[in-house]
């Protein structure tokens, strides 16, 4: 078992739920809230709070629109988000190789 070096890890990405958000959005270009919720198996409140945190960190871009008079939020990773995730994964791989 190799423990993380918490000094080097990106703590915003490191949370399991946020990590899952990154993983989903790296696979699809953009995803609606319900799609993310389905794939991550998170509750509305928990997912919303974590998406908000990623959005505030500049990792996520959100598009809000009304579809059939119902609000719909679509999320995608920003360039900063993609880069940070790649660095995070590279960090994990380095840790494994050590």
């Amino acid at each position, binding site marked *: 078992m190799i423990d993380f070096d918490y000094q080097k890890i990106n703590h915003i990405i490191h949370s399991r739920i946020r990590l899952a958000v990154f993983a989903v959005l790296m696979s699809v270009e953009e*995803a609606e809230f319900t799609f993310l919720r389905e794939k991550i198996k998170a509750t509305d409140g928990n997912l919303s709070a974590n998406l908000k945190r990623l959005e505030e960190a500049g990792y996520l871009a959100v598009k809000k629109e009304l579809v059939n008079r119902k609000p719909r939020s679509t999320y995608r990773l920003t360039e900063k988000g993609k880069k940070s995730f790649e660095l995070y994964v590279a960090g994990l791989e380095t840790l494994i190789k050590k």
Partner: protein
Amino acid sequence: MKERNAEEDLAFIRRVMEDSRKIMVDDGLNYILWGIIIVFGLAIIYIKEVSRISLRSDLIWLIFSVIGVFLTLWINRHKHFQSRAKTFAGQILKSLWTAIALSIAIIGLVGYHTDSISIWSFPAVFSIIIGLGYFISALLYNQSWIKFVAVAWWGGGLIMFFWKSIQTIILFSLMMILFQIIPGIALYKKWRKEWPAKTDD
């Protein structure tokens, strides 16, 4: 959290990414729509040829193409509001079939007016092009059975290169039903299963 390790996290990322990639990239409605439009167009052309009615074939196809384009735009607009995830594969798929449709339109229109291609060769040429589209689509949908649809189009195309007659229209129509409308229905059913309509969100 302390219990987590890098290997576990990488495996988790991989699992989530693989699961997210397994989604249907398209609902197949456009295959059904264009299949029906072409079968209708071919039926009119067949009746026209058999009954020796004086109608301009290019005008028939122009009318059907315009109807098809409008219906496609309407479907795609509806899809945009319904889709819950946009994938890169889905965008490639859209570009691929747009390019194929344009190529067929150019060959049909220019070939017909310049007499550079015999009108009886059109179904064969179009079948080969459609086969190419299905072969690439198989990869984008991640559905290997679509490759057999491509092979069927190529096989039909080869037959039509040698067999040029009024009956070619019937064969081409049958191919449209078997290798365009039916696969479209199969894709649509799979898509509906994966993306059940949600009205509560």
